[in-house]
Every structure is written in structure tokens, then in C-alpha cells.
């Protein structure tokens, strides 16, 4: 009796169970966020921790507004000098570093991946090394990168490049191997040259693994770059955050973390949208 009652949800009972699943999920999410806010504020007001380790969300909000609105940096954009919040300069530096790293590391990964995937000799010789190096934390190479590329954006780009190369190369190599062999035979029967084989058959056939590799690559490139910025630099978002921490401006640090979170979500959404486009 009880079982049958559970199987057919009692619509007449109303309340929680009568709501559609999506609404229940939404309500739960709102509840979780509201709960976290309440707990956070309670801890902040209690004075149990050192001042500002858990600042009130009101001060964090104020810091956030300050970061985004107080124009305290003289920027030179296409020859015209205007005042902008300094945050955007640092955002630009990090974006520039990550995008350059993606470009270099992504193209290198794609090229090497294509070579490894289509040549059993090369993959036999080199792929094992890549598998072992892939999961190694790339930050251990940072001292080396500073010596080679200096303390400026060069070493950050190098760290990002190094990070994103591995996921791209491994998914590209695997992507080549999963191409339907008959498509390659079709290409050969129509006498395509190597360039046409790559651009008109390999790359379109590998779309999915490439997008996945780029997605993973973007994630680790951001990590590599930010990590490098927090270690040794005087610009970029990583520097801003670690600087706020060093001078113990906790509300500002939390505000920066929230902003960084937003930027990451936006970047991921962009890649996701690009991967769905036909």
C-alpha cells in the first residue's frame, strides 16, 4: 500500500512534492545560497575570527563596487589617455597572457598531436613521455621560465603555454586515432594532398576531441598563468589578489575572487558556445 502511494505522487497533497523537478531544484539552490549568506554574516558578526578574515558581505560588496568604478589608472588606449579602474588593466594583462598561451600552446599541441596520432613510430617514441609529463604540476618549471623569459608577462605566458599544451596534444592525438579510417581512404581515392587531408578531413572529423582539448587547455592555462602571477609579478589578476592578501585588505581580496570567478565562468561559456556552433 505504502509503495503504490509513493509511486503515484499525490498531486492532491500539494506542497513540495507537487512541484515539478526543475522548480524544486531551483528552490533548493536559492535556499543553499541564502543559507550560506546567513552563515557567513553570522560568523562575520560574531567576532570569533580575527577581524576581516571573514568580512561582512556588505564591505565585500563595497570593495567590489570600488574595484569596478574608481578610475584610478591613466590608460593609454589607441593614443588617447583616459582614466579607468586599475582592475581592468590587470584583467587585460592576464587575458593577454592566457590568450597568447592558448594560441602558442594550442597550435603546438594540435600540430604535435596530429603528427603523433597519424604516425605510429612518433607516437611510440614520444607519447609515453607526454603521458607522464601531462599530470605533473607545471609550476615546478616556473623558476626555469623566469630564468628563460624574465619576470614580466613572458614567463607567465610560458607557464600558460606549458599547461595548455598537454591536454591539447593528448586529445588531438587520440582524436586522430578515432577518425573513421574509411574517410581517410575516401580522401586518398580523390587524391587529396597532405594539406587538404589535414584541413578537409582530419580537422573537421576531430572537431569534438579538439574542442574538448581546448576546453581543458583553457582551464589549465588560466591556472598556470594565475599561479605564476601570484608567485612573482607586478601585474595581472593573480598579482592583484596576492597583493590584497599581503596588505591584508580582505574585503578587496574576496571581491577580486568573486570577479575572477565570474571571468572564468564567462570564458568557459564562450568556449562552450563556440563548440556548439555548427
Amino acid at each position, binding site marked *: 500500500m505504502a509503495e503504490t502511494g509513493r509511486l503515484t505522487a499525490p498531486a492532491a497533497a500539494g506542497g513540495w512534492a507537487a512541484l515539478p523537478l526543475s522548480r524544486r531544484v531551483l528552490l533548493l539552490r536559492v535556499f543553499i545560497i541564502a543559507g550560506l549568506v546567513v552563515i557567513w554574516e553570522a560568523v562575520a558578526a560574531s567576532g570569533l575570527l580575527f577581524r576581516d578574515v571573514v568580512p561582512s558581505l556588505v564591505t565585500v560588496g563595497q570593495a567590489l563596487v570600488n574595484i569596478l568604478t574608481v578610475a584610478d589608472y591613466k590608460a593609454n588606449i589607441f593614443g588617447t589617455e583616459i582614466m579607468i579602474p586599475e582592475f581592468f588593466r590587470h584583467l587585460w594583462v592576464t587575458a593577454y597572457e592566457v590568450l597568447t598561451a592558448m594560441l602558442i600552446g594550442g597550435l603546438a599541441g594540435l600540430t604535435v598531436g596530429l603528427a603523433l596520432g597519424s604516425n605510429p613510430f612518433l607516437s611510440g617514441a614520444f607519447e609515453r613521455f607526454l603521458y607522464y609529463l601531462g599530470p605533473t604540476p607545471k609550476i615546478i618549471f616556473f623558476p626555469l621560465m623566469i630564468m628563460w623569459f624574465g619576470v614580466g608577462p613572458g614567463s607567465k605566458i610560458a607557464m600558460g603555454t606549458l599547461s595548455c599544451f598537454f591536454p591539447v596534444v593528448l586529445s588531438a592525438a587520440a582524436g586522430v586515432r578515432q577518425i*573513421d579510417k*574509411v*574517410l581517410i*581512404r*575516401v580522401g*586518398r*581515392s*580523390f*587524391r*587529396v594532398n597532405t594539406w*587538404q587531408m589535414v584541413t*578537409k*578531413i582530419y580537422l*573537421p*572529423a576531430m*572537431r569534438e576531441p579538439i574542442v574538448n582539448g581546448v576546453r581543458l587547455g583553457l582551464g589549465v592555462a588560466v591556472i598556470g598563468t594565475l599561479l605564476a602571477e601570484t608567485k612573482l609579478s607586478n601585474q595581472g589578476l593573480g598579482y592583484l589578489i596576492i597583493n590584497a592578501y599581503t596588505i591584508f585588505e580582505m574585503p578587496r581580496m574576496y571581491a577580486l575572487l568573486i570577479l575572477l570567478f565570474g571571468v572564468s565562468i564567462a570564458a568557459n561559456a564562450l568556449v562552450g558556445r563556440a563548440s556548439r556552433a555548427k
Partner: protein
Amino acid sequence: MGGTMPSNPSVGSDSAGAATQPLLVVDDIYKQFETAEGPVVAVDHVSFDVAPGEFLSVIGPSGCGKSTLFNIMGGLLDGYDGHIKVAGETLRGPHASVGMIFQEESTFPWRTVVDNVAFPLEIAGMAKAERLDRARHFVELVGLDGFERRYPSELSGGMRQRVSMARTLASEPKILLMDEPFAALDEQTRLLLGDKVLQIQQDLKQTTLLITHNLTEAVQLSDRILVMTYRPGRMKRMVEIKLPRPRSSEIVGSDAFGHYVAQIWNDLREEASKGLKDDEARRGGTRR
């Protein structure tokens, strides 16, 4: 005309005194593969030729080296003895005059029907407007007009195989090679597509070589049928099909058709049962 060809071509038939120069000459092809259990002879000294406009089928049981022969004639496989001549030229790699239609699903899933068909023209460097125009013509030829902008995933298996056919025809090959193009399709679709092939072949006077293990299909379409032996793949018999043209799938019910099918099956049965026995023996061997 295929009818003037000798029905039992001898080895090295270059000197055959036919009035028309053969379009495809297969001269004493021998191919063996190295396997874990030692070398296996796939094709054992096979020779024949195909006249312009002729439709020739190669029939044999699984394991008779048909597909090996197909890949050799298409220039996709080397390391064989003997040689292949296409329109008088000795074959070295894929040849512009040879068009191949594969047994497997081979449309490009990321291209629409018309872009699939335009592929060989794109490779040849034809301007976009012109190649799309030509591609549309071939899409129409295989009866897929209205589906130009669809993707292969939106089509049935039979339709996709027709896209492959249109794509190969668009490259305007002098000789069309088909490797069991309808093997994955059901019998009705197969017969109806056979009609399509007959009609196209009659419209274009397309010289065609069909690899198949399907008797009905072979008799329905061919001027001549080469029956192959089971491993090693040798020539067993060349049968001339003197059914009137133009044909359609209706002839499948005629007495003459049944006569040819029975005759070829007689040859084929022996080879097919060898293959079956061999297969069973191998399975038994691994069990012990």
C-alpha cells in the same frame, strides 16, 4: 560492346584482339599478406579486363580476396606482383580516372549532401558556384533532389550510400569501382538501388566494376561476372550475362535470370562451403 569480349580471357590479355581498347587491364595480380600464422595468399594470379561501357562484377565468398583486389585497383594498396593499367597507363597510387565507392558508411558527417558531393570538385580547385551547380546535378542524378542541404545523419542508410555514389560520380571517373556498396542495406532497398545504378549506368555509359557476394545483384546488373575461388582467390569462371538491356529489377523474376543465378550458384556453392568449413575448422582449433 561487352558482348564482343571473349568470355574466358587468358592470362596477360594485352594482346587480345578486341576491337575496343580495354579501359582497365588487370594483369596477373598476385598479393600475399604476412600474418601471425605465416603468409596468406589473398589474390592468386588474377587477370581480366574491362571494356569501355562494360559492367563487370567480381563475385566470390567472403575471404576470396575481393576487397584486396578492389583496393589494389583503386591504388590504395601496393606491394603486389603484376600490374594494373587504366586507360593505357600503369597504375601507381590512386588514379584520377578511377572512382571508388566503399562498402562502409563513407559520407562526411560534417558536410551537407551537396557539399559532400562537391568534395572531389573542391579538391580539383573548381570555383564554388560552379562546383555547387555540378554537385546539384549529381545529387539529382541519384534521386536526392530536395535533400541538398541535409546532413548525412538526417538520411537513411540507402540515401547516404547514394550520396557516396553521387560524390564519386561527380569526379567523373572513367571507371567506377564499387565494393559491395549495398551490403549493409535490406533486400528491397538493395534491388531498388540496383535499378538506380542500372539507370545511371545506361545514362552515363559508365564503365563499372562491382565487387559483390550477392548473386541477384550481380546478375541483375552485369554484362559479365567473374567468379572467384575461396582462398587463395583465383579466377574460377567468367560468365557472360546475355540478358537484354535496358534492364530493371523486374528481370529478377524471369526464367533466364533464374538460369544464370543457378549456374553461378553451382560454381559458387563449392567455394562458399570451402570457406564455411575453413571457418569452422579455425574456430574449432582455437577452442582446443
